[in-house]
């Protein structure tokens, strides 16, 4: 069986600073995978490399059996990979509804049409309304994105990655800055929406990690120090030493 996402020997450095070294990882289709690691471990850089935002120095990225190394972000998206950002990245002057609709346009077959009414894509609108409800943003449907509260913006950020129907979804710290209750709602949402899809997350909140993840990869100092099911990662001595330290009690 092919992996949903397969990384083969990725290297990346900025000038003389080496950020990532020899990252190899296989993520099975339909699983929820979490990447953890201390700040500066290169987690966001890894996402940027996978999604085409940054160029690799060496190595290959395969998506569902296809080599996507060096493709542009939009080409990668078209092959079924969507992502969210750590720093909220929305369309500030457009309404929540329009934000989500834009995210869904590619897969709804809108193309670049300038001769068809956007409102004519009824299925897309339905999909978006549904997502609005799921994100509990229904009452904020027509509010401009930059007028939303922070937590609402984070929810919308996740929504943009989810609405398009991609088979593999990369979320960069989806619950960052959320309250406990909001985090719990988000976890429920992710659990629900990741059914049948592959979910890769960077996450700091370890309760979320162990709640959701089927497999965990630990990044530290630009390298993978452990990868596997939660139980094995939890028991890994190097992980404890290199990363967990203060948070060790959560693990036990």
């Amino acid at each position, binding site marked *: 069986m092919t992996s949903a996402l397969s990384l083969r020997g990725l290297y990346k450095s900025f000038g003389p600073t080496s950020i990532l070294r020899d990252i190899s990882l296989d993520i099975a289709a339909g699983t929820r995978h979490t990447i953890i690691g201390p700040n500066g471990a290169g987690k966001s850089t890894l996402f940027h490399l996978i999604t085409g935002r940054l160029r690799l120095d060496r190595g290959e990225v395969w998506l569902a059996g296809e080599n996507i190394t060096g493709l542009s972000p939009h080409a990668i998206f078209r092959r079924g990979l969507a992502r969210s950002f750590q720093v909220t990245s*929305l*369309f500030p002057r457009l309404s929540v509804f329009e934000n989500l609709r*834009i995210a869904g346009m*590619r*897969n709804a077959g809108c193309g670049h*049409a*300038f001769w068809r009414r*956007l409102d004519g894509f009824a299925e897309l609108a339905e999909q978006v*309304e*549904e997502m609005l409800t799921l994100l509990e943003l229904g009452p904020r449907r027509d509010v401009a994105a930059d007028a939303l509260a922070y937590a609402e913006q984070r929810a919308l950020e996740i929504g943009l990655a989810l609405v398009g129907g991609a088979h593999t979804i990369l979320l960069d710290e989806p619950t960052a800055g959320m309250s406990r209750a909001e985090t719990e709602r988000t976890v429920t949402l992710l659990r629900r929406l990741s059914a049948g899809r592959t979910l890769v997350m960077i996450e700091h909140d370890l309760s979320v990690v162990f709640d959701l993840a089927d497999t965990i990869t630990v990044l530290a100092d630009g390298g993978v120090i452990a990868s596997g099911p939660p139980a094995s990662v939890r028991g890994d001595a190097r992980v404890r030493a290199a990363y967990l330290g203060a948070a060790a009690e959560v693990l036990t």
Partner: protein
Amino acid sequence: MSQPATTLAATKSRHARQGGLKIALVFGLAIVVALIAPHLFASGFGLSLLNRMAIAIVFALSFNMLLGQGGMLDFGHAVFFGLGGFATMHLLKWVDGGLPLPVALLPLAGALGGAFVAVPAGWISTRREGTAFAMITLGIAELAVALVVMIPQWFGGEEGVSGDRSGGMPLFGFDFGAASQIYYVLAFWALIAAALMWGVTRTPLGRLANAVRDNPLRVDFLGYDPARIRFLTFILSGFFAGIAGGMQALNDEILTVSNIGSQASGAVLLMTYIGGVGTFSGPIIGAVLITLLQMALGTLTDAWQLYSGLIFVAMVLWAPGGISGIIRSHAPILRGGLGGRLLAAYLALLPAALVTLAGIIGLAELAYRLQAVRGGGKPGHLFGLAVSPTTPWQWLIPLALFLFGAALLSRLAPGARAAWQEAAAFAAGRRGR
């Protein structure tokens, strides 16, 4: 998660139906205005003003398709306008020569010409965004002007290319020679082009252009190439600018290098910005107003260029949303019935504003009339007073007015601003609930 999907869909379709009705109403009204206008301004000058407005509206809307909808500042938009015009003009000459085409259809040639030129220009420029894009368009504009001047065989050099719109195939018995007849042709095209451009904002590409304007990076991660979206928008914009150019060709029956030059590009930027880039109606307001201003102010005072410069800078400083921005920021307040309170705050500003204005006008007029007097002219009157710009004390009056008024304004302005903010917040609060 409580609202049943059926109710939701129902609300939505009601929304859509109401929206559609509103749009139909607006365009119906526009058609009525277009039909009535020539009877209100029946003189040749009035018609010629209306014709220019129609052209300016299409041109400004096409410009705002880039700037307002797509976030692209094009310093050479007149290139597509002008070259579209030249295309129309050449076709018009063939029509004069016997090509069986109705003259009224010729702006379409301008559209094709504009789009045709926009393809290579856009191919180079739209791969970049922001300032780099703007600068490339500046370079392209300079290049285009240089080329047009260098090839008089095609563009007629300084004397331009002229044609005769009444030489073609008559349509329903009209030959379109008379200004009143050509008005209807131009009004027709202005309405069609405006409707189409409005339509484009409702299409996938139109929405994607908004997205690219706001956040091109994110668009890239949603499966679209931002450069491609910019490119297509650019070509469309060139297409509509070309229609405006074609209308211009029919109206003036002559087209010269100046129609593609930086002044024409600057004028459309001015119109669009003053009208407001944030709304679809902004450029229309700007086009109508600036056309009027250009023609009317010039007959009233020598200082009109200075005044338009000052008005422009004042708008940039205090009303960056343009006129439509002002309207939009007050509409909810008025709808919320809070206009009265705000009006009082504004009225308090009025005397100070008038005093300042009188001071500025006095200074400017004195300066221009001093120049006139030096050249042997007569100083004339201002506000019913005999002007003598060579007498020093006459300068003191407007100077004092200006300083006093400005000081007063800077005192009072924060109060009015606060009143507006309060009213806006109140109105927003009401609506939010």
